[in-house]
């Protein structure tokens, strides 16, 4: 088992990241560039560590541009139509409409322009910038090509590879670290997102040889079969949808241990969020800022859970056990975490739809005081991994976030209060109470706008080697068999 390391485990000791969208000029130069990049890519079995982990995702358009033979493209189009179509075409299903619609995304997210994603994770901005420079600007003279005055030029220039940073100022993004008010001996600091919630409290993953549990107290672990995230492996249902029974060994090897990655830039309107939450506060009725935030998310900002018995804090539960909260008195049915990870069996036709999350906030923190700082763009640069874009990522975002998961009680068409593109008449949120009528929050604005999205495949070590060495089954070979 040798997928790219980021799929199997969170990048170690990393606080910063940067993502680039690449566009290749042609197959030959694109492959040449990727052979150069190959040296930096971090696979699970690799024991080299330059301090910065580099990961490569290729889009369907990118694979077409790199002249991936038709037998492989056909497998992708048949087994993952969402990947083949690309993120923009799937956006309406996800609820990425209106201001989040693809026509509002920057040009480099366009299907024709996004061929690959190159992600860099490192300890700090400087480390990342150094590797970025080596990857894109290594002086190089390509055999048979002459540069002006015979001087070496940046490789990306020689090979006509366009690379666009996802953040406006092209500087790497960094985690928001804060001291925990409820910290423990093991952890006094935690990661946070711009809305002020603690992040990284649930670890989703799969078992692989040599996996070490290094998780800290208070972190929930959810382990699944590898096939939920890796192609060619058995999933939670005991099936292998990428068994490719009729394909040749070379085709199977190409896809083995690949994973689909979804890069999704989500801009967060912190000012609107804080203003809306403040407007709902009613201290006499017990509705503090933290209470409202806790109900919208399903956790208090510091990560602590809501007690189903009282409907407020101090839950003794270590993890969100929604089975024990059948009426939603603790965690409302419409709350963000209950939708995104229902865990229990109250969802109609339950099928676990796990996603590995490797996201990180971008942009400077909102202050509420400094207008210049607050006017800047900020949000979450989400990077999600799964084996089925349709059944996992798209179902979560397009179904469970876009309406209440079927089977839940409450306003069925209401959207995720934190991340939904709100529409009139459905922009409400119910807080069930142990006694009395539920509290209803209405006129919820849209707090999150999708600024762009890319569907990519992160090939395993063997798949990438086969691609770069052009050791692939061609159309004619397949017909001969």
């Amino acid at each position: 088992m040798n997928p790219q390391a980021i799929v199997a485990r969170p990048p170690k000791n990393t606080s910063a990241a940067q993502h680039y969208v690449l566009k290749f000029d042609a197959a030959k130069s694109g492959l040449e560039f990727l052979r150069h990049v190959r040296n930096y890519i971090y696979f699970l079995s690799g024991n080299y560590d330059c301090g910065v982990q580099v990961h490569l995702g290729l889009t369907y358009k990118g694979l077409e541009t790199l002249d991936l033979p038709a037998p492989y493209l056909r497998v992708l189009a048949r087994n993952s139509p969402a990947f083949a179509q690309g993120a923009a075409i799937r956006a309406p299903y996800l609820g990425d409409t209106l201001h989040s619609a693809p026509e509002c995304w920057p040009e480099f997210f366009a299907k024709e322009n996004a061929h690959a994603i190159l992600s860099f994770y490192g300890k700090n901005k400087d480390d990342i910038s150094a590797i970025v420079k080596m990857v894109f600007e290594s002086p190089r003279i390509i055999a048979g090509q002459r540069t002006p005055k015979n001087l070496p030029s940046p490789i990306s220039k020689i090979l006509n590879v366009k690379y666009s940073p996802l953040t406006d100022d092209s500087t790497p993004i960094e985690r928001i670290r804060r001291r925990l008010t409820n910290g423990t001996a093991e952890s006094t600091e935690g990661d946070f997102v711009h809305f002020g919630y603690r992040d990284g409290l649930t670890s989703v993953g799969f078992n692989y040889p040599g996996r070490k549990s290094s998780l800290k107290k208070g972190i929930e672990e959810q382990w699944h079969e590898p096939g939920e995230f890796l192609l060619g492996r058995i999933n939670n249902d005991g099936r292998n949808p990428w068994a490719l029974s009729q394909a040749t060994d070379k085709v199977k090897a190409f896809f083995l241990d690949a994973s689909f990655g979804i890069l999704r830039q989500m801009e967060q309107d912190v000012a609107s969020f804080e203003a809306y939450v403040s407007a709902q506060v009613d201290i006499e009725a017990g509705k503090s800022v933290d209470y409202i935030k806790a109900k919208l998310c399903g956790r208090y900002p510091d990560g602590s859970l809501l007690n189903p018995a009282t409907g407020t804090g101090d839950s003794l539960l270590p993890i969100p056990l929604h089975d024990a909260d059948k009426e939603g008195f603790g965690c409302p049915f419409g709350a963000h975490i209950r939708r995104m990870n229902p865990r229990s069996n109250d969802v109609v036709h339950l099928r676990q739809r796990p996603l590995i999350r490797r996201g990180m906030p971008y942009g400077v923190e909102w202050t509420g005081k400094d207008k210049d700082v607050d006017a800047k763009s900020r949000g979450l640069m989400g990077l999600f991994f799964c084996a089925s874009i349709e059944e996992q990522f798209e179902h979560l975002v397009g179904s469970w976030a876009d309406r209440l998961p079927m089977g839940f009680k409450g306003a069925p068409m209401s959207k995720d209060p934190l991340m939904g593109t709100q529409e009139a008449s459905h922009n409400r949120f119910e807080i069930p109470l142990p006694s009395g009528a539920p509290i209803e929050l209405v006129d919820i604005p849209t707090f999150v706008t999708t600024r762009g999205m890319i569907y990519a495949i992160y090939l395993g070590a063997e798949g990438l080697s086969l691609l770069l060495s052009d050791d692939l089954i061609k159309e004619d070979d397949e017909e001969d068999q």
Partner: protein
Amino acid sequence: MSGKAKRKPFNENDYQSAVDKHAKNRVIFEWICDDYDRAKLYQKLSTLQIDTRGTKLGAKPFPIKSRSKFLDDPSPLKSDSTDDCGSIVYLVHNRKDINSIMLDTDSYSNLPYLEIGSGGFMLGLDPLGISVPVGKVDIHKIQREALEHSLVSWQAAEVKTLSQLAVKEAKVMALRNKFFDVADFSEQAALRFCIKLFGFATSDYGLLEESLRRTYRGMNYQMFGRHFLSEPLTLPLAKEWMGRLGTRVSQLLDEYQHLPNYPRWDERLGDPRAKQRLLPEGVEPLSDFGLTGGKPVLQVLATTKLNLTGQERMVIAVGTLAGIVGNVQASVCIAVEHILNQLKNNHIKKSVGSPSAKAFALQPDDWTWIAEAMKLNPPAPYLPRIVAKEVTTPSGFKFNKGDELILMIGTGTNDTSPICPFHNVAGQKEDSLIFGFGENTNLPKQPYSQHWCVGDFLARPLIEETVRATLSLPGLSRRYDPVTAEPLRLEKRWGFACEKFPLSYKREKLRTQQSLNVVMRIKAPIPENAERLKRVIVGGAPRIESALIKARHVHFAWFEFIENDTKLVLHTVYDGDFEAYVSHFALTVDDMFDQLFMSIEGSPPLPVRDFPNEFVETLRRYNLPPAGGYLFSAYPTAETHQITAAVDAGTL
């Protein structure tokens, strides 16, 4: 494979450098057909220094060589030595000239409309007098009064209610799938509006649809297209279909006239059919829809004392119908596209929708957006005129008798100079070139009021309701080119007649239930396999039952043998969409499907467990949608789990 080739950018020199008059005609046409180029052309028209008469024109009417030699030239005679692009038509683009021409009905005639059979009527709508003198009778005034009279019983509130009803009815079919076409939706709304307003039978829908499409296209051809294209069939077909519609209208007028004296049946106390006594067969009483004030236009036209023949009454009705449907369709499409285009610059977030919610939907006071869209792209952007006598325009251009003109309404509405004030209706900016605002409005007459336009009273509420209904659809989105992922845009014929505007919405939020009808051919030997399948179904029924109960999203499911037991059909009604639920559910009973598929032709590779994607594709391929895509549900938003929970709780 990929989308359309990119157009080369607008270059005003293309006209001068065009090799001949054919090429020049084509350059102008290409510019006019493209939104971006047309806007550039409008900007440049006032400065282009081209004049076939040898003088510099500046902002004066711009002459182009027309492909249409004669006014009534659907197809030139073989014996005629056609001089293609030999005649001149003037594009009148100066606001002052347009205003003047529309008001001066002594000097300018709307004769071109005669070719499609309504030249005597109010297409083009002059405020006074007539375009074609008929003795000393002011026929136009009589016609206008007749139409006004036929609408007297309709109050604005009732027109609004009728609009809402028409939109609601149009939703049933136009929005039956998640992919829909705004052009289709708005056309359906307008047709259903007209059926009730005029008092047609429901069964007249098809006739109205086809005849008004043909007529609208004929009008557009006559007004504009014939100068650039040759479509020999367009006008004859328009005339033929207008004739068919006219025949039906005449028949209804006769019936409406006849029925007061000879009701369909005697009035009896308590007879539920009483309200239909004076209505022709198939006409639904307006009171059935809560419309108690308005009377069918045809009924009033038929029974009112007017100095008009039956033929003239028919022409009034047909002419009005022809003016409503196509223009409502165009207005709605233009407005929706304009508003969606504004999303990119973020202005729409603040201005459309509830300010507090910042949720997206057109609110009652958001007409401004529609008005702005129509100002930028008027739904009826070209009006034809013939010069009736020698005359000089306000811009100083001298026309000769017989000169053909096209009034470029789009240049007029985009003229922002101070001489072109917007009319201020309830504080909203609007242009009199679109809805007229003539002497029949309650407003004081304005210097640039053009005409009394029935559109302001009838079409405007319908446009507003249809645009609002479209923008309120959950998950409203553009559709994207499947190859390039570029958004599919509003398709306009000749740059203005809106033919297609594909969008999508989350249908399951309005109608959660879906049907699945998988029709599978039984493998030979058919009798044996049919018997085997029956045994499999009987034997597996408890297993299916258990799986369906556990699934909690299937309302009904059954098998049916059809065509003499040669095909097996799996029917289900379920919640959610196919991708999200059917595929995974089916995989939970995959062994059952293995058994079934053993006796089915064209089955996917088995076992299902090893070929899940192929299995799902097979289901999709053999699935037949309901006829016309129409599926009725008495409770379209109720989901299985909600119903069973209510049953379990004893509340249902």
